[in-house]
Each structure stands twice: as structure tokens, then as C-alpha cells.
């Protein structure tokens, strides 16, 4: 760091944070969630905090406001903001500090805004509460920020209610809210994680520009190294509450020193060679349209895709593109209004009630949230054993032996059969769900965003397991995802969905090579790449294109 000491805005030394946990059935105890973390942040610079869930990155971000969420307590170290130790500031001192010198941008803008009040009132609230400006001044400042953040019709934008604007716009409104009091430091806590990839890029560019123009310092918290590489001057890698590595962005992504950082950098580069086409078709969806009761238009429009035995079809699209609805139509939860679904040579009944048990057995499903896909009151043995009992009539020792076989197949081994889901980690839960699907000996498994809720390294493990199981059992996957890196890692063929229709469909090699249609081009070019300057390139490219049109 070449900056003079007087330019240091935030100086954190030996930070230690503890929390009281209440595990079910046990006594409450204290755990250390952040230990011995030190860093400095100069005025106008951006520090990226990166790590998996549980790494303590959000906790550190909130500690910069001397705040602990829930039962979290800051028990050691110093946090100096502008030379003052804010841990000794007292309640009144902290009130004066929060929302004035340090502000916060939360992950879920939809949950952070009060739905009953207009955006302008909420964006200017902290500024007015602290008496930093008159209402006219604050509103003028907010309108200027709306314009700078690229929000449509900045003059009138503040008159709207939160539900009247999109998720990406709401996230930018929250950024305006954080910047309005002209703070020295903004804490961004995963501001783009909940957004679609094509929206993320706009918000990211808007945030970056706003940070540069206002000269504010920022802590940028995310689990996505490619995102933070676009915005941060320096990066700190965290794991289980401890610092792994810290350095300038270029060095961290270009020449990581630690094993863990190297794994994070390379996690999205998994490749999977495409299998040759020409096998037997296991699922054939022909001209399927579907709509939810009470909605005027189809959420699925004339969709036709097919999957060969032992192959993987990835269905890619943003939220609302109809990809999960396609899964519901195939499983029979939402009978299609038009079209026909053939499965292993038979025409499937459109609704669940009309399907034979054999159809149900051969078509299994794995969900995004493994937590709620398993009954919390059933043991792993019951969860995996029930399909065995239900479809094959296995009982007693025979069943237990097969459960153990399946546990071995998902690389979990002994000692898990008697556990409850709450006693498993996120990755283990998803593995048990995979075992439950496999227990039915299916021909096709529908995987609905199965890796989206998992940390990148755990997700990679799940993808490898799915590929191994496919090689052994010859099962086909319909893999629903919004993540292009996941598609590259697992798909044989790809269907790109947009607004309920398939806009591009074919073998992976063809779908992912030019010439692209407009939407696929937008989707592919929005996926953050692990290098600096990527964001500017894409934005410049798009501006040129729109100017050319």
C-alpha cells in the first residue's frame, strides 16, 4: 500500500467475533466465527471480501459498522474508522456513525425495502434523519444518483413503490440509498448474487461507476471471485473466519499463493467432453405449452426437446424463463395445455394421478434446496430406503444393505444412515437427495438448480459425482440451471429458454459457438470472466452495438 497513513479510512486489527449457538438437543455454547482478521482500507479504494458461506465475510462487513447480527458479539480487536475506535463509540456514537459515515447495501433488496413507502422517502431517510441536508437537497441528490446509476426516468423514479420496479432497479435504488448521505465507506453485502446474470452486469457496472464518481471506499462481499475481480482493488480471501490470503486483485487471480485460493480461481473451469449423439431417445417433449390457472398467458410456449439415454440436456435461462415450469410439466405436477410427452417409448399421462408407478419410478427429481427436499423428521435410512420399499418391496436387512450401497455410491460411507438431515452439511444433504433419486433406478433424473445453493467447491464435487453416476448407471439428466459454467461442466446438449420458449437448442458444441442469436449472445457475454477489465469490455462492446443499431 503506497497510500499515506492519513489516507487510511478503515483499520481493522486482530478482529475476533463470537456467537452463541443453540444446537437442537444440546446446551448453548459459544463459537468463534471470525478470528484474527486484520486489514486496512484507504479512502476511495475497494476491498473485496471473498469466501464460501460460513467464512465470516458478512459478519466482518457488519463489524465495520460495529454491528453484530443476532447473537453475534465482537469480542476482540480494534476497528478504527477515520482514526477513531468505533467499538468504544457507545450507543449514541454508533447511531451518529451508521447511515452517515458507513452505510450498507444488503443482498436482498426486495426484503430490505418497506413495501408500503415510496422509494424516495426510503432513499433519503438516513440523510434527513441525520440532518445532513434539507429535503429538497436530499431529493436532488437522490435524483442525481438515480441518473448516475442508470435508472430510467430519474426525476420520477422515486415516486414509485418497491413492487413497481424490477429486482435490478431495486438493487440500484438501494445503492443510491447508501450513497445519498455521502458516507466515507459503503459495505456491499452480495448485492448482485440474487440477480439474473444479464441483470447482474448492469448493476455491477452501475455500482462500479458510482463508487468511482463519488470517491467512496467500499467493502465488497461476495462468494464469486469473477465478480469481485471486476470491482475490487484488493481482495481478501477468507475461510472459516480466518484470512487465507490478501493482495491486489491482479495478483490474487493471476498468481494465487495458497492452495485454497487456487481452487477458488479454477473452480469454474471444469470441462466435460460432449457424448456423441445417436442413442435411444428416453424423453421426447413435443410442442408442449402450459399455463398456470388464472394467468392469461402461457408460461411455456411450444417447447420441443429430447434427451437420449445416458445423456445430459441442460436447460438454461434466467428466472421466469419457464425452465422450472418445464420440469413441472414433465413430472405431471402441471398438466400441459397442449403437446405430448413421450418417456421411454410410452406417452405419459399429462397429470400425475394418471401415471403408472413404473413411470413415476423411472422419472426422478432432485431439488435446488436440499434442506426442504428432505423430511427433517426422517433419518437418512428412511429417506433413501422409502423408494426401495415403495418400488421394489425391499424390507429389513435387504433394504439396509442397499441403503449402504447407495451411501457408498454417493461417497458418504458408513455412519450416516441414522442421522437426521439437520446433522448433515449442505453438500451431504444434496448427496442424500441424489441417493434417494438413484434408489428408484430411474432412466431420467430432473435436476432443478441442484448446485445453485451450494458453495463453488462443494458444487463442483456434486457435478463430478453426477457425471460419475451417469457413467456407471447410464441415467439421463435434465439439468436446469442459470449458470453457464455449470452447463459447460455437465451438458451434452443445451436448450436455451427465454420467456417460456426455447430460443436455441442443440448439441453443446453448436449451441455455445457463434453465430449466436441475440439472447444467447447476451446471456453468454454476461457471464463474468475471471480477469480484470472484462466488465468494461462488455459494457463498451454493448454501447457500440446499440450505437450501431
Amino acid at each position, binding site marked *: 500500500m503506497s497510500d499515506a497513513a492519513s489516507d487510511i479510512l478503515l483499520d481493522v486489527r486482530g478482529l475476533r467475533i463470537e456467537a452463541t449457538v443453540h444446537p*437442537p438437543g444440546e446446551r448453548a455454547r459459544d463459537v468463534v466465527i471470525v478470528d484474527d482478521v486484520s486489514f486496512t482500507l484507504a479512502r476511495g479504494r475497494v476491498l473485496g471480501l471473498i469466501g464460501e458461506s460460513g467464512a465470516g465475510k458478512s459478519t466482518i462487513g457488519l463489524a465495520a459498522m460495529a454491528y453484530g447480527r443476532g447473537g453475534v458479539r465482537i469480542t476482540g480487536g480494534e476497528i478504527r474508522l477515520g482514526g477513531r475506535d468505533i467499538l468504544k463509540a457507545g450507543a449514541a456514537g454508533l447511531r451518529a456513525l451508521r447511515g452517515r459515515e458507513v452505510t450498507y447495501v444488503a443482498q436482498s433488496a426486495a426484503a430490505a425495502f418497506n413495501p408500503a413507502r415510496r422509494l424516495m422517502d426510503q432513499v433519503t431517510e438516513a440523510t434527513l434523519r441525520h440532518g445532513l441536508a434539507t429535503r429538497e437537497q436530499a431529493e436532488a441528490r437522490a435524483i442525481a444518483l438515480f441518473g448516475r446509476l442508470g435508472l430510467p426516468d430519474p426525476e420520477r423514479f422515486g415516486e414509485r413503490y418497491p413492487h413497481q420496479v424490477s429486482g435490478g432497479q431495486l438493487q440500484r435504488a438501494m445503492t443510491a440509498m447508501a450513497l445519498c448521505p455521502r458516507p466515507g465507506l459503503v459495505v456491499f453485502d452480495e448485492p448482485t448474487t440474487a440477480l439474473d446474470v444479464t441483470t447482474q452486469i448492469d448493476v455491477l457496472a452501475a455500482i462500479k461507476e458510482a463508487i468511482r464518481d463519488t470517491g467512496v471506499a467500499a467493502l465488497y462481499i461476495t462468494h464469486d471471485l469473477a465478480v469481485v475481480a471486476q470491482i475490487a482493488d484488493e481482495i481478501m480471501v477468507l475461510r472459516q473466519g480466518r484470512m487465507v490470503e490478501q493482495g491486489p486483485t491482479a495478483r490474487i487471480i493471476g498468481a494465487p499463493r495458497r492452495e485454497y485460493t487456487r481452487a477458488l480461481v479454477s473452480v469454474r473451469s471444469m470441462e466435460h467432453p460432449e457424448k456423441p449423439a445417436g442413442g435411444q431417445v428416453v424423453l421426447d417433449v413435443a410442442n408442449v405449452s402450459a399455463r398456470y390457472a388464472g394467468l392469461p398467458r402461457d408460461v411455456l410456449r411450444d417447447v420441443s426437446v429430447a434427451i437420449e439415454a445416458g445423456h445430459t440436456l441442460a436447460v438454461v435461462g434466467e428466472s421466469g424463463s419457464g425452465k422450472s415450469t418445464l420440469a413441472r410439466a414433465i413430472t405431471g*405436477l402441471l398438466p400441459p395445455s397442449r403437446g405430448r410427452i413421450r418417456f421411454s417409448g410410452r406417452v405419459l399421462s399429462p397429470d400425475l394421478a394418471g*401415471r403408472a408407478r413404473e413411470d413415476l419410478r423411472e422419472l426422478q427429481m432432485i431439488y435446488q434446496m436440499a434442506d426442504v427436499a*428432505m423430511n427433517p423428521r426422517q433419518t437418512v435410512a428412511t429417506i433413501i430406503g422409502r423408494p426401495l420399499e415403495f418400488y421394489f418391496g425391499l424390507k429389513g436387512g435387504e433394504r439396509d444393505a442397499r441403503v449402504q450401497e447407495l451411501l457408498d455410491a454417493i461417497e458418504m460411507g458408513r455412519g450416516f444412515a441414522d442421522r437426521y438431515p439437520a446433522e448433515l452439511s449442505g453438500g451431504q444433504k444434496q448427496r442424500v437427495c441424489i441417493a*434417494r433419486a438413484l434408489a*428408484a433406478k430411474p432412466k431420467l433424473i430432473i435436476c432443478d438448480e441442484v448446485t445453485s445453493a451450494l458453495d463453488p467447491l462443494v458444487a463442483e464435487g456434486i457435478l463430478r459425482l453426477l457425471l460419475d453416476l451417469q457413467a456407471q448407471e447410464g441415467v439421463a439428466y435434465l439439468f436446469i440451471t442459470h449458470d453457464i459454467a455449470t452447463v459447460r461442466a455437465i451438458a451434452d446438449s443445451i436448450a436455451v429458454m427465454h420467456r417460456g420458449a426455447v430460443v436455441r437448442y442443440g448439441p453443446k458444441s453448436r449451441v455455445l459457438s457463434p453465430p449466436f442469436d441475440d439472447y444467447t449472445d447476451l446471456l453468454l457475454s454476461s457471464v463474468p470472466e475471471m480477469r480484470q477489465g472484462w466488465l468494461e469490455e462488455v459494457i463498451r462492446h454493448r454501447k457500440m452495438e446499440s450505437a450501431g443499431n
Partner: protein
Amino acid sequence: MRRIPLSALIGLAVTGAFFAVALTAQWIAPHPIDEIVSPQIWAPRSPEFPLGTDSIGRDLLSRMIFGCQVTILVATAATVLSFTVGSVLGFLAATAGGWVDQILSRANDLIMAIPSLILALVILSVTPPGIVTLVLVIGLLDATRVFRLARAVAADIAVMDYVEAARLRGEGKAWVIFREILPNALSPLVAELGLRFIFAVLFISTLSFLGLGVQPPLADWGGMVKENAAGLVYGVPAALVPSAAIAVLAISVNLVADWILARTTSLKGGRGV
């Protein structure tokens, strides 16, 4: 097992004592329920009659003990009935949805729209008196409340992915209700069970006080308050004994119910395994 708080321990002990008395009434009561043992009505406390005698000279302690048995028997039977009927129908409404849900829920609303005490009085005044009738009336009227809770809890659980997974597997309604939903709905229902039990105690006491509940020669606490109420004017405390018993039972069951409720809906521990 986590530590049981003191209030819950007291509640458990007192509730347990009441149930023990109810179960052993025949053996521990010094006199039969309807035997006139003293020529003196509303006799004061004495070594022979620890609580004195009642309005026609019967031993108040013996009547309290038998009254405990009747009160707890009727309340328990009514609570069991209301839970069985209410939760099964509630779960059915939540899982079946559609017109089944509409018919059950609207019929339930219809019954709940009429004040239950008035409805009970009307029904009891036209039906032959008896313990069974009483249990049926209290149990079925209380089932409307249980239905609402069970339906709300089950509706939350029925949309979980694991219930969908069971349906996709082809499981029948019985498996979904009893194996997927019931175990997860049990905690809030058990907490509600304690509260409904108290309401049943209060309900039967009210009915007996009004003369339409437990009929002589049997006696329950509410009826005993009524028999001895006139004595209050002359400074005879006999009516206060059953009143106090009702209050103590209600409070002690509440202490236990509170603890279960706190345990199952705690923000920290969640629904413990």
C-alpha cells in the same frame, strides 16, 4: 434433553398431582360422593372433614376428589376427540385442497360463527343429559379451533419439496398425511393441546355451573361452585375451593404448555429433532 425451567417443573408437578388424584379417586376419597355425612350444612373445617361440608352436609374433600376425576375425565376425552377430528380434517383439507378444502373450511367457519357456549347450551338442552353427550358437544365444538390450526400448519408443510417428492413418488394420501406432515406438525399441535385442555376444563365447568353439564349424583367442580355459591353470602368459603382448584389446574397446565410452545417455536433452536 435440555434443562426444564422451574415454572414448567412446577406446572408438571401440579398437573401430575391432579391427574394422580383423578386416577385414584375411588381409593383415596374418605367418603362416597353422595353420602350425607354430617347433619350440619357448610360445617367449618375440622379434623374429620378437612375442607368442611357442603350445602347439604356432604364431605367437601371427597366431592372435590371425585369432582377432579369427572372434570379431568371429561376434559381429556373432549380434548382427544377435538384433536383427532380437528387435525385429521385439517390435514385433509390442506393436502386435498380444492373443493374438499372449501367445503370443510366454510362449514368450519359456519360453526365458529355461532358463539360456542350458546350453541352448546342449545344442543345440551334438547339432548338427553349424560357424560357422553357432554364429551361429544365440547369435543366437536373445540375441534373447529384445532381444525384451523392444523390446516394452517399443514398448508405450510404441504408446499415443501419433500411433500412434493413424496407425491411424485406416488405415495397415497395416508402416507403424506401421517408420515410426511404429521411428524412435522406435531410440535405446534402438542402445545395447542395443553391450551385446548384448559379451555375444555373451563367449558365443562361453565356448563355445569349453568346446570347443563354434569348431572347429579356425579359432581364436577363447576357444579360444586354452583351448589355452594349461596353460602358465600353467609361467609361460607365452600364455593371458593372448587373455584381455586379450577384456577390452579388451568395455571399449571398453562405453565407446561408455555414451555412446550417456547421449546418448539424458539427462534434459536427451531423445532428440535
